[in-house]
């Protein structure tokens, strides 16, 4: 063992002793890290808005727990897994951050959550889509809160099939997320007696979709499913509208569509589109009241991701208070023992695999005539019960389940 290794192991040993000897609330502060894309493609999905929601949660909680202050750190992950992982590493090592939230791009989340697991902290994932987060990559150190790709594909595809869309053509973003989504859609379509006539995988990101839309049109499928996200989905939908896809009787199904996307495209282009969402600002009195407060502070209505961040943070802080500890497993156990009841979810429950199961909503984008305001964009067609929306535990590959 050379000198460097000796020093390293001494430091490691000391830090282990130190953490074991820590008081119940470490450093006399609750430290929360907010990691999200603050400047790139996914900025409007969470970004500064998600941070605002996090601050609202902390303020609503009173800013402290039994006299111990709640402190927020925030950083831009630039949608780069290495940046995200090293930021979280720095937070847990140097600032002793207890919980990390936000967490948008799936690739960043998978990298960052490994660091969180090694450090024995907790991650509350609100922004990311990949359902693998609570499947093959599940961990005792993270909870997936708002939605996931399984629930979106399942909710939207089933509804479209029920409305008579039997033959499908899938437009897929050519990377891990798109492939997973394509597989999820194919599974649902085949299970319900439909067929997939073809797929086309476009490079990520692309700006011109006319060629792919033309191929989808040529396939003669009833439904064109968009297994892409963000700007790719926006451009696909706009192109489809120009090429008269809906006029010719074909239906479009956007799999990952957010409120800010619809707002950006406008109702002329998006009307009639079916989508699945984890939350909507105009569900009831409670959601409207919260959204009003958010809008007064931030300037736009919240999408499901900031709402999820608010809900997850409040639930976390309540659990810290109830358990009198900020140790990750103690808090997680407390969080799992308490149902989630707030403006985001009713009777939401956190499963052993880390999935927060709550009702999802099947929505249809309003027509310009139906819409009464800038943000009056969805009509809720159906509430999908949580147990139906998310991947059943029986079909899960999560390693945590077999241990029990």
């Amino acid at each position, binding site marked *: 063992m050379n000198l460097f290794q000796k020093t390293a192991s001494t430091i490691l040993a000391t830090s282990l002793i130190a953490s074991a000897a820590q008081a119940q609330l470490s450093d006399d502060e609750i430290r929360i890290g907010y990691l999200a894309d603050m400047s790139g493609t996914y900025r409007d999905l969470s970004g500064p808005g998600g941070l605002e929601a996090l601050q609202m949660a902390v303020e609503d909680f009173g800013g402290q727990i039994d006299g111990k202050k709640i402190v927020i750190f925030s950083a831009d992950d630039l949608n780069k897994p290495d940046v995200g992982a090293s930021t979280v590493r720095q937070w847990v090592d140097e600032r002793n951050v207890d919980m990390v939230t936000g967490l948008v791009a799936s690739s960043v989340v998978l990298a960052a959550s490994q660091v969180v697991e090694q450090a024995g902290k907790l991650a509350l994932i609100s922004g990311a889509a990949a359902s693998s987060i609570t499947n093959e990559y599940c961990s005792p150190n993270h909870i997936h809160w708002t939605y996931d790709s399984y629930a979106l594909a399942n909710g939207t595809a089933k509804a479209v099939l029920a409305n008579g869309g039997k033959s499908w053509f899938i437009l897929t973003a050519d990377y891990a997320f798109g492939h997973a989504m394509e597989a999820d859609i194919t599974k649902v379509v085949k299970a319900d007696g439909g067929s997939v006539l073809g797929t086309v995988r476009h490079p990520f990101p692309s*700006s*011109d979709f006319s060629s792919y839309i033309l191929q989808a049109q040529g396939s003669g499928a009833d439904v064109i499913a968009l297994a892409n996200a963000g700007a790719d989905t*926006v451009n696909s939908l706009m192109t489809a509208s120009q090429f008269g896809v809906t006029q010719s009787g074909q239906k479009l199904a956007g799999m990952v569509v957010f409120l800010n996307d619809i707002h950006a495209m406008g109702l002329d282009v998006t009307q009639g589109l079916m989508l699945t969402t984890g939350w909507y600002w105009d569900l009831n009195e409670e959601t409207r009241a919260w959204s009003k407060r958010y809008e007064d502070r931030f300037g736009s209505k919240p999408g499901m991701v900031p709402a999820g961040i608010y809900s997850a943070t409040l639930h976390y802080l309540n659990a810290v208070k109830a358990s009198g500890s900020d140790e990750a497993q103690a808090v997680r156990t407390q969080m799992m023992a308490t149902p989630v009841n707030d403006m985001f979810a009713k009777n939401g429950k956190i499963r052993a695999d880390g999935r927060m199961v709550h009702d999802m909503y099947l929505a249809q984008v309003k027509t310009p005539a139906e819409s009464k305001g800038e943000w009056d964009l969805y009509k809720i067609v159906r509430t999908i019960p949580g147990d139906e929306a998310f991947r059943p535990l029986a079909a899960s590959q999560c390693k945590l389940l077999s241990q029990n």
Partner: protein
Amino acid sequence: MTMVFGIPLGVLLGQLLLGLINGAFYALLSLGLAIIFGLLRIINFAHGAQYMLGAFAAVLGLNYLGLNYWVALIVAPLLVGALGMLIERGLLRRIAGEDHLYGLLLTFGLALIVEGCFVKLFGVSGASYPMPELLKGGYNLGFMFLPTYRAWVVVAALVVCLLTWYMIERTRLGSYLRAGTENPKLMQAFGINVPLLITLTYGYGAALAAFAGVLAAPIYSVTPTMGANLLIVVFAVVVIGGMGSIMGAIVTGLAMGLIEGLTKVIYPEAANTIVFLVMVLVLLVRPAGLFGKET
């Protein structure tokens, strides 16, 4: 149905037509870059930002001043062109004659600042721009549905490209410009105001980018990063055509659009890379580009 490369002829024709439409954008943007490089010897990395500014000028003009599409098509290029002239006078002039790298870094920095400000102001989801009434709808060509607007894009872009080519290659002003490219000192000795010519050229290049931006506004989502994504491909087009070659930029732009269109049917996964593949091949065989002069 007749098959070509294992693809029905109708599908192939449709894809080629779409390729031509994209090619028209490439041609318009690479033309501006080629003109600027020709006279200023500056690799204008702010070109994407100027394209984005054109699109945003159209959106903001409509939302706040009620200016319609046709007005925007004239006003936005004028505004962005004027801004370009200010940039040339205030910044680029100071580094004239220095290594290419300085111009590249300066314009790249400017582009990052402008895009950053727009992200801060408007977010990344961007805005949508309504299709002008006159150009809504489309034609059924039998093998495909051609939206009127896309046809208009090809016509407008080609007309502007050819007018520019004519102006530079066939008029007196153009001859000054070409002479200025060859030997600025001698031109100045003849009493031609070369600095003014340079300012106007940069302004015109920027205006072309803004014109392309307005053309793009109704069909693509208008976002702060729309130019940055396109710029790299356009640079490849300019390199393939030969830096500084006017006709080279136009022809290569259209050709790359067609090749990309074909790739999207035959092997879509490679659609974003094919242009760069062509660039590598061209550089290996003709380092000065297809239409460039060997020096």
